[in-house]
């Protein structure tokens, strides 16, 4: 059986972004707001992030992932958001309508006044980083291992090596220690850590777990089960240095080598994807290049604080509702955002003159001294004690400031410069 359903705002994914989008849409006046989630559970990836560290900005205390989501889900129920779990969105059309599959209701074609994409991100697998050797059991992304341990109650192994120093890998190193495993080391190809410095301190240093910068895994060993890895130091071009190889025995290799926004559906909808962020090109209203499709959270750009994901989700939901109700102010001027020399990636990519804007950016490499994050034309300037790729920086610009720019200004450059 196949049915058509018509609603005001549809949200895809019930992670922090999607749940907040549902609330934002309801609070902006949309009547029928439905969040579609493929899992049986609400909350997205945060349900497996059982360590504290979430919500300091929103709730003024540090909660675990499930506690943080519990509060938002309660709020969503209170706001009258409808959730459909066990419901996979498997196809999206260029008009923004999409198809869902659910074991009870079968296939449905959903038409909404506006859609918010909140599919999150996935982890980069080993295939993406070209390590030679067979593929024995015992190699997992850190997030898969996190799900095993924290939700399935299953320990993937006893002697662990972590490749990459993203936060999930650091958190998992500590988690595996607490569960009785030994962690032989964390190896990072870059000259600086991928994750937050506090996670280096509280997950590695606290337990004397060795941390090796400028190192990578050059080979994996073992036929059926992983028996060890070869690690080596790398040179400035990230090529392994001959003679520095050594064997590290382990039965588990965890990969914490980065996250990629999940955008199959966005592509089907014809939404333009940015080559560097890997997420949709959006403006500060979180509107994509398809005007009835909005996007928020890790599907747009990988954030490091869930508080920002929730805030952006709320904004996307609110603007989607306004769009559906014909109340979203149309841009009268448009400014393209560009990143300066020290900026690796940023979002949003363009600004309308109708709304205040926050631009999130990451630097290319660490600047370990006083520096300044700026937007040109005198729009923004803030002094920072340092800037690191693992920690996002923000630029705030008011709509009035944008409207007052001379008519020939069509571009805004954001950058981080040493003082």
């Amino acid at each position: 059986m196949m049915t058509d359903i018509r609603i005001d705002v549809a949200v895809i994914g019930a992670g922090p972004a999607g749940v907040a989008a549902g609330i934002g849409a309801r609070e902006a006046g949309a009547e029928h707001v439905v969040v579609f989630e493929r899992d049986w559970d609400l909350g997205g990836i945060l349900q497996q992030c059982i360590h504290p560290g979430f919500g300091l900005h929103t709730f003024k205390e540090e909660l675990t992932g499930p506690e943080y989501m519990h509060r938002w889900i309660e709020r969503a129920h209170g706001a009258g958001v409808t959730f459909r779990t066990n419901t996979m969105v498997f196809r999206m059309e260029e008009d923004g309508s999409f198809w869902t599959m659910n074991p009870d209701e079968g296939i449905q074609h959903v038409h909404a006044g506006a859609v918010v994409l909140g599919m999150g991100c996935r982890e980069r697998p080993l295939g993406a980083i070209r390590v030679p050797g067979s593929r024995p059991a015992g190699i997992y992304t850190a997030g898969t291992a996190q799900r095993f341990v924290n939700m399935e109650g299953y320990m993937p192994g006893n002697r662990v090596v972590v490749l990459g120093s993203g936060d999930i890998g650091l958190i998992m190193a500590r988690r595996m220690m607490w569960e009785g495993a030994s962690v032989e080391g964390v190896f990072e190809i870059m000259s600086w850590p991928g994750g937050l410095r506090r996670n280096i301190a509280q997950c590695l240093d606290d337990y004397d777990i060795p941390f090796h910068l400028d190192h990578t895994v050059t080979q994996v060993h073992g036929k059926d089960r992983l028996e060890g890895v070869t690690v080596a130091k790398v040179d400035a071009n990230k090529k392994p240095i001959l003679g520095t190889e050594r064997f590290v025995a382990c039965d588990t290799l965890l990969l914490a080598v980065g996250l990629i926004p999940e955008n199959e559906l966005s592509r089907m909808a014809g939404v333009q994807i940015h080559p560097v962020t890997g997420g949709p090109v959006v403006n500060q209203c979180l509107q994509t290049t398809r005007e009835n499709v909005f996007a928020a959270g890790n599907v747009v750009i990988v954030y490091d604080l869930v508080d920002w994901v929730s805030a952006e989700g709320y904004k996307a939901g609110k603007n989607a509702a306004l769009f559906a109700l014909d109340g979203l102010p149309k841009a009268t001027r448009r400014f393209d955002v560009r990143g300066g020399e020290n900026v690796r990636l940023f979002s949003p990519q363009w600004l309308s003159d109708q709304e205040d804007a926050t631009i999130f950016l990451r630097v290319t490499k660490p600047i370990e001294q006083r520096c300044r994050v700026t937007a040109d034309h005198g729009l923004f300037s803030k002094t920072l004690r340092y800037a690191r790729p693992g920690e996002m920086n923000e630029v705030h610009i008011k709509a009035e400031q944008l409207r007052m720019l001379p008519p020939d200004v069509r571009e805004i450059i954001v950058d981080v410069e040493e003082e």
Partner: protein
Amino acid sequence: MTERETRKFICVSCPVGCMLTVHMEEGRIVKVEGNACMRGEAYAEAEVRNPTRVFASTVKVSGGLLPVVPVRSRSAVPKEKLFDIAREVARVVVEAPVKIGQVVLVDVCGTGVDIVASRSLEAEEKRAG
């Protein structure tokens, strides 16, 4: 002669992760540098006297939608007791349904701190529906 010492810590009280330099005399803190807010001073004080951390893990559940449910120490516990606490928490089995905030272990390892569930979990039947 006064005994002077400088120690360095990374404050883990928030995601900023300030690098703290703690100047000590006769085992007492005389000055903390590098902290961007007052919580950094409190952290330095605790790191010197009695370092504490919040513990988070899972416990087994019988008859639940998932085989385990996440738990945490309600507040921070002494760092040196973390592994004892981990062993004690590993022995706990709770029965579904579990409610968020529910105490699963009172006064863990004599710390005076309870271990509480950090999510709600329904009993198994419900998942099928």
